[in-house]
């Protein structure tokens, strides 16, 4: 009996000794730690998040970022697995309507206090803010904004076409493509052929033809708008774009063709602002290309909004909680947003960041101005191809129709419009 007691005491004592440091950590100043997952692994995206991690470490935090390369959906598979295992990351990339959908399957962090302390709500576009507070509370923070319908013009291709005017409408765009073709540019369009790329061609066409129709058909899924004449016109424009592309493009990524684009072998590219980051990261200069808002038939810029964001998942560990607060403060910080956007080519979420200084490109200033104008004229809409307008299942159903149409030249615009309406019905 006395022996047992001694043993028990010994055991209790050693447990206390072992537990003491952890207890002390929890009581005193914890070292903030952040477990994060995102799809940003390489290129300008990878460089930007690594820079963010450095800032996090400078503030005394422990940065544990696990990138999952590929499309956002690949990252989501890891996120799903972690949530189901009861071990979500403290913070993960997620955006658009997916924030609302995913917040239903696991508890998230209420960021209202941190956001209020930073006065962030005043400097975020209201439509965008809404996506990040699905239940009325901030649970996610937007990090950077892209427009998915920026028009990239190759300087050398413009020279070949003897053109210097930036096309404003789709008619201008089509004229310029013809001029490039006759001026010796082998392929006036430099886009790739991945699914989101094909989706972007369509959304740029439709929003440029009529932002109202885009809002009704793609964002609100109104049946009448989906069967409207604008959809057919948009498909007809997409066919023109497809015909000016290199037929061998297949399912290539747009970055495969960047060199041919800069060399003037290809002329124009309808791509998100991130292409600027990719071009710069590949060693090309600002003098090689021009960036302008995508064609808009009513003359006022249309902004197809895509915003990357971080969502914060509830964790019990005090160090992770401290890390979440620190991360939220960093993401809202104008200096951090400036640093991030200057690496990736995006524009900051904060509307009060001044882009006139050094480090910003003409393209970024144009994009920021386009966003301001588009919001004023109610022409800022959410991107379908990049999962901002609808959840994944609906987006994928739409892109099925679009990507098949881009690659199959025997499908008529009318047929494609009917199929799109059917696909939306099927995915509802």
């Amino acid at each position, binding site marked *: 009996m006395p022996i047992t007691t001694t043993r028990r005491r010994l055991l209790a004592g050693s447990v206390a000794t072992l537990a003491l440091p952890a207890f002390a950590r929890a009581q005193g100043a914890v070292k903030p730690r952040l477990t994060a997952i995102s799809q940003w692994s390489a290129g300008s995206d990878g460089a930007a998040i690594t820079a963010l991690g450095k800032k996090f470490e400078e503030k005394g935090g422990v940065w544990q970022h696990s990138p999952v390369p590929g499309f956002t*959906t690949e990252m*989501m598979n890891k996120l799903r697995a972690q949530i189901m295992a009861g071990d979500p990351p403290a913070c993960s990339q997620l955006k658009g309507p997916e924030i609302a959908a995913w917040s239903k399957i696991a508890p998230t962090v209420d960021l209202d206090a941190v956001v209020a302390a930073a006065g962030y709500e005043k400097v975020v576009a209201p439509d965008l803010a809404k996506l990040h507070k699905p239940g009325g509370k901030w649970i996610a923070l937007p990090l950077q904004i892209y427009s998915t319908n920026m028009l990239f013009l190759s300087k050398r291709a413009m020279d070949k076409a003897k053109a210097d005017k930036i096309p404003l409408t789709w008619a201008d765009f089509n004229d310029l493509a013809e001029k490039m073709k006759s001026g010796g540019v082998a392929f006036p369009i430099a886009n790739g052929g991945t699914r989101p790329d094909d989706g972007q061609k369509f959304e740029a066409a439709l929003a440029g033809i009529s932002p109202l129709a885009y809002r009704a058909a793609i964002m609100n899924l109104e049946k009448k708008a989906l069967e409207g004449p604008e959809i057919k016109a948009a498909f007809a424009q997409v066919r023109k774009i497809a015909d000016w592309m290199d037929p061998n493009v297949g*399912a290539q990524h747009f970055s495969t063709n960047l060199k041919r684009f800069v060399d003037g072998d290809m002329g124009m590219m309808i791509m998100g602002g991130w292409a600027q980051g990719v071009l710069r990261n590949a060693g090309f200069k600002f003098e090689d290309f021009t960036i302008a808002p995508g064609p808009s038939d009513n003359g006022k810029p249309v902004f197809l909004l895509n915003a990357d964001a971080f969502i914060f998942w509830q964790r019990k560990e005090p160090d992770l909680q401290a890390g979440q607060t620190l991360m939220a403060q960093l993401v809202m910080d104008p200096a951090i947003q400036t640093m991030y956007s200057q690496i990736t080519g995006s524009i900051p979420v904060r509307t009060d960041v001044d882009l006139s200084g050094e480090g910003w490109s003409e393209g970024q200033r144009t994009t920021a101005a386009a966003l301001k104008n588009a919001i004023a004229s109610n022409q800022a809409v959410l991107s379908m191809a990049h999962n901002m307008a609808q959840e994944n*299942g609906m987006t*994928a159903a739409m892109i099925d129709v679009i990507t098949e149409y881009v690659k*199959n030249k025997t499908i008529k615009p009318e047929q494609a419009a009917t199929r799109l309406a059917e696909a939306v019905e*099927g995915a509802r």
Partner: protein
Amino acid sequence: MSNAAAIRPGRPALPEWVRRLPEYLTIWVPLLLSAAHLVSFSLWTIWISFTPSTLIPVTGWVGLRNYTAVAASRNWQIAFDNLLLFGCAFVVLSAATGLILAILLDQRIRGENVLRSIFLYPLAVSFVVTGTVWSWLLNPGLGIQKLVHDLGWTSFRFDWLIDRDMAIWTIVIAAIWQSSGFAMALFLAGLRSVDADIIKAAQIDGAGPVRIYRRIILPSLWPITITVVVIQLQFAISTFDLVRALTNGGPGIATQLPALVVYDLMFQRSLLGRGAAAAVLMLLILLAVLLPYAAWRYLQRRRAAHA
């Protein structure tokens, strides 16, 4: 004492079951574990296919709604048509290629071992590698077409990879390249196991080599042919990595296959219920191939036992 030691040198007698314990352990434990995994996960998938699960598995009952949604989708219909075409073309052509290679190798030629290794080698390559390599070879701007153009024959066209009607054939080509060596190995074993006495007897009777192959050797190969066909068919039905690397279902959605649809629904669209329904449909297609094969094997064994 010394007598007993001579009969059982140095080893005490062990009961039969203890002596065979390692055998039982190596056979039954893995077998039961894998069967439990297979069965439990299959049942779980079947259950999920009747629930309204989307992002994560949830309980609930939606009846056959997931099945009707999958069956009505264009993706699945294209995938199913492609599977019929790909399955038939791939099985017939790879078996034929394998048989021809086996017959040629069977001529007691010099360097048979080297040639056999070369033809079997693609089987050792991962499907992703096969798909990627062929996607370069078949890309008109990079591969075979460009080579022939550069040689001066500029009217030559070989652009199946980007032609949505022909793209499925590029998968057939790559799959045959990969697995006809396997068919060859099986057929070669079959050819070598034909009784030499029968062949000698036929030769004495004055039969030429063509006639010997046609009337004696090939008919005796048909059990092996069935094995080859069934193995290749189940490979065809579950093809995934090859297509993903070669065309990724493109151009557009022209080369969708059922396994791609399942992956797409589950992991790209976050529609777990529909993905599970598609997976169960795939299982049914597999059973449609495997059950008749099992029945045939059973009948054969019974006939052999009675004979």
